[in-house]
């Protein structure tokens, strides 16, 4: 043991005034007795009045001196050299993804990882900072550059894994941004605590990198696919069960729809293989299907044993894109949910002969069927034109769903056709030279024949595709031209994913609770199961389920590729100074409390009468 502040030893001289004060302070309590004869004889036997006897007798003085000794020892800041694996600034990437829920090392891999990080915190030197980033679907720092071990332990205790795939790239970007410089002693170390699932070939990290592997084995069975499709005999459910472990297994799989058991089957699945199973003749009116692994021999990750799919076929809208090729337009349509886009150069019909829900004509004309909705861009033959104009400075715009959140003021086009629009085709945006956007509903005898959105200029001759307004305009136009049957929700939602829903939508969770959606969308998608979103008269179910082949592959990785190299998992013995003044201060406090207690209550060993 060494000391950091030897000058504080001088404080030990305070013992001298304490003893002197004690000797001066010593006042005997007076007690009358019938006779001192016997006491004098006793004292003659043992010279009780010596100075040493006075000092030895007084427990309070002894406690005061011990308190002083403990305080002096604390002031000189003694420390002991502890073997440490860490020094400098420390960044811990704690894997909190779904694979860490595996129970191959009970109670779970995450608890193992928590314990490992806890040991790192305990080994942390007094001047070493530590940050902890919880790596799940949306990595975030749970402790930032602190030397306070209590805070670190508290943050670690509150960390919980989430049933979502890990986003290592975001985590490494966050770690790089956080680590910025080097630590006080010039060293920076990143420790990755993970089972290595879904963490292959990570980006380079600054400073020293260490990898603490978690996990014992990779025995896992997962429902790797569950889907339903419409057939002539109703619905057909397709389920694929994959044995991701290293041992052959017998699995009991069941399929339910709307809480009713459809079928159950025992599947023998060799190691590393998958088994497919199709169930036909399902009632097309069901709203959802659930597949689950009910029994398995070697299965350590349960979150991927259940999958849900909703019967959302009716919400798919079919779009025919007639275009010579426009990447902006194709991309804008591709990202829209529940949209099945067929791109063609020449007009065609759906394979089953039905008309499309929406026709997007990008400079290509065709004969539209009756009651067709169309978005017409650029050159067209439906309406007559009378020349062009190029001054497209924004003049005014109408209130219309197509223009919701669209800022048209900075959009320009080099050549706009002047369209002789019929009365039902209203100009939505007008420039100083003429209208640049039309929308309207073609009237029919009994009902409208269809809706039209007209952009009278070619996208190539405009900066519209480069503007933020473009994908919004396309999305608004698609929703107005071919409104979805229910709420427009993606068919597959991962746990933790935010679902865009209209404000005040009521969502019924799988556990029966109901939640109203605020402006930020619906984010309480932590439970796996079927959710029901209700907005006005629309009622749309959607399924939240864990489906991540990478996270289901839970075989622990003893090594990890980070920036093309393999960080060591070996402990490099180092030395750190651990100060023990805190313990000494606690001892001093306890001694002080004891001294006070004895002063108040008397010496326990001598519980006689006091005067």
């Amino acid at each position: 043991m060494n000391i950091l502040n030897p000058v504080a030893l001088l404080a030990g001289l305070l013992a001298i005034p304490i003893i002197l004060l004690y000797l001066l302070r010593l006042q005997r309590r007076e007690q009358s007795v019938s006779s001192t004869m016997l006491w004098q004889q006793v004292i003659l036997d043992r010279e009780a009045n010596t100075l040493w006897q006075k000092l030895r007798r007084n427990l309070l003085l002894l406690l005061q001196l011990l308190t002083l000794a403990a305080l002096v020892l604390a002031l000189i800041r003694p420390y002991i050299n502890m073997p440490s694996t860490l020094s400098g600034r420390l960044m811990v990437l704690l894997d909190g993804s779904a694979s860490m829920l595996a129970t191959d090392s009970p109670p779970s891999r995450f608890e193992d990882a928590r314990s490992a990080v806890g040991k790192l915190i305990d080994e942390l030197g007094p001047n070493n900072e530590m940050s902890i980033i919880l790596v799940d679907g949306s990595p975030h720092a749970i402790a930032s550059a602190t030397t306070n071990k209590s805070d670190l332990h508290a943050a670690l205790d509150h960390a919980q894994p989430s049933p979502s795939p890990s986003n290592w790239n975001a985590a490494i970007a966050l770690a790089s941004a956080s680590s910025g410089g080097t630590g006080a002693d010039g060293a920076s170390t990143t420790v990755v605590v993970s089972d290595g699932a879904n963490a292959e070939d990570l980006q380079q990290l600054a400073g020293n990198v260490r990898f603490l592997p978690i996990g014992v084995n990779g025995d896992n069975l997962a429902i790797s696919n569950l889907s339903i499709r419409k057939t002539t005999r109703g619905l057909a459910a397709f389920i694929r069960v994959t044995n991701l472990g290293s041992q052959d297994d017998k699995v009991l799989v069941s399929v339910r729809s709307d809480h009713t058991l459809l079928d159950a089957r025992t599947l023998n699945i060799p190691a590393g293989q998958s088994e497919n199973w199709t169930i036909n003749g399902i009632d097309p009116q069901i709203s959802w299907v659930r597949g689950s692994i009910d029994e398995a021999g070697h299965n350590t990750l349960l979150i991927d044993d259940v999958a849900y799919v909703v019967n959302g076929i009716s919400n798919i809208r079919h779009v025919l894109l007639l275009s010579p090729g426009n990447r902006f337009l194709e991309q804008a349509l591709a990202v829209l949910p529940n949209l099945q886009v067929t791109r063609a150069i020449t007009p065609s019909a759906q394979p089953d002969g039905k008309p499309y829900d929406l026709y997007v004509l990008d400079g290509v004309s065709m004969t539209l069927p009756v009651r067709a909705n169309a978005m017409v861009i650029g050159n067209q033959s439906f309406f007559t034109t009378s020349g062009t104009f190029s001054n497209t400075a924004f003049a005014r715009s109408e209130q219309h769903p197509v223009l919701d959140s669209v800022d048209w003021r900075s959009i320009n086009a080099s050549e706009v056709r002047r369209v002789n629009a019929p009365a039902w085709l209203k100009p939505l945006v007008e420039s100083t030279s003429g209208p640049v956007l039309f929308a309207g509903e073609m009237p029919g005898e009994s009902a409208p024949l269809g809706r039209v959105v007209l952009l009278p200029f070619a996208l190539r001759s405009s900066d519209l595709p480069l503007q933020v307004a473009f994908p919004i305009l396309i999305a608004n136009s698609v929703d107005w031209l071919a409104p979805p049957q229910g709420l427009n929700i993606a068919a597959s939602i991962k746990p933790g994913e935010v679902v865009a829903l209209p404000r005040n939508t009521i969502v019924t969770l799988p556990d029966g609770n109901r939640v109203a959606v605020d402006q930020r969308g619906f984010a309480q998608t932590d439970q796996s199961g079927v959710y029901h979103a209700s907005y006005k008269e629309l009622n749309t179910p959607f399924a939240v389920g864990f489906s991540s082949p990478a996270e289901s592959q839970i075989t622990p990785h003893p090594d990890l590729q980070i920036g093309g190299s393999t960080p060591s998992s070996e402990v490099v013995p180092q030395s750190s100074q651990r100060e023990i003044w805190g313990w000494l201060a606690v001892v001093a406090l306890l001694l002080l409390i004891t001294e006070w207690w004895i002063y108040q209550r008397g010496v326990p060993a001598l519980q006689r009468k006091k005067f």
Partner: protein
Amino acid sequence: MLVESILRSLNGLRFVPQRRRPGVTTGERRSPRRGRSLEFADYRDYTPGDDPRRVDWNVYARLERPYIKLYEDEEDLTVHVLLDSSPSMQWREENEQASPKWNCAAQLAMAMCYIALTSGDRLVIETSTKARFGPKRGATAISSFIEFIEREALPAEVADGRVPANRVTQVTHLNSWWKRYALDAKPGLCVIISDFLDPEGYVEGLNALGAGRLDVNILHTLSTAELDPEFSGDLRLRDIETAAAQDISLDDALITQYRRRLNQFTTELADFCRRRGGKYHLINTSESAEKIILRDLRKEGWII
């Protein structure tokens, strides 16, 4: 003081003297002298001058030698009660209303007197302040005895040590008291009620009483605080008789040493007393006087 019911239970009790002592007047105790009682004692040769009426003529007829017939004499027994009324005997705690030690000693003294008076013995009681009561005979003297005891009580501030006793009263040492008393004491039974806590000792005084043909019996009265002190810490012990101070730091070892010393003190006193044919009884003054008298002293043969 003793309640009347206890006093009544003492009726019929009498002291058991160790040996016959000549009395003062005719009484109910056998005297070492030959006397005029009806109980035959011995014969002796006739010597000129003897009363011819005391010659046993039947014996003369058989032996043709004159013998005088001797009879037992019955005289009274003088009971001396020496009550130590020194401040140490009357010590009490400051918060106590009365001294338990003095109460016990006074009750014992009263009981001794009552037994002596009701059994026809001659009673003399003297305290260490030289106050004397007696000689008396008969139970009627009891009431005046109570007043005598009460007069011996010290003021409260002296008994609890607030005022040194030597400022109020002259402290008498045991030896000088008993030596003086032995000078004019009639032979008889002597009961000493004292704590014997006198730095000058007790040996000379007891020897003087023995030499005065007194059968010395000791009731050694010590309080609980003296037998098992409960003091602790750094103390200045103040002797209430002499006002002498004694600084002391009490711990377990010192308490043990005190107990050992006290045991030695009482053992020496008991041995001294018994070697001279007397009786010794150590009394914890927290015990009831009734229990001491009716059980302990009867069991040890002090009274029957």
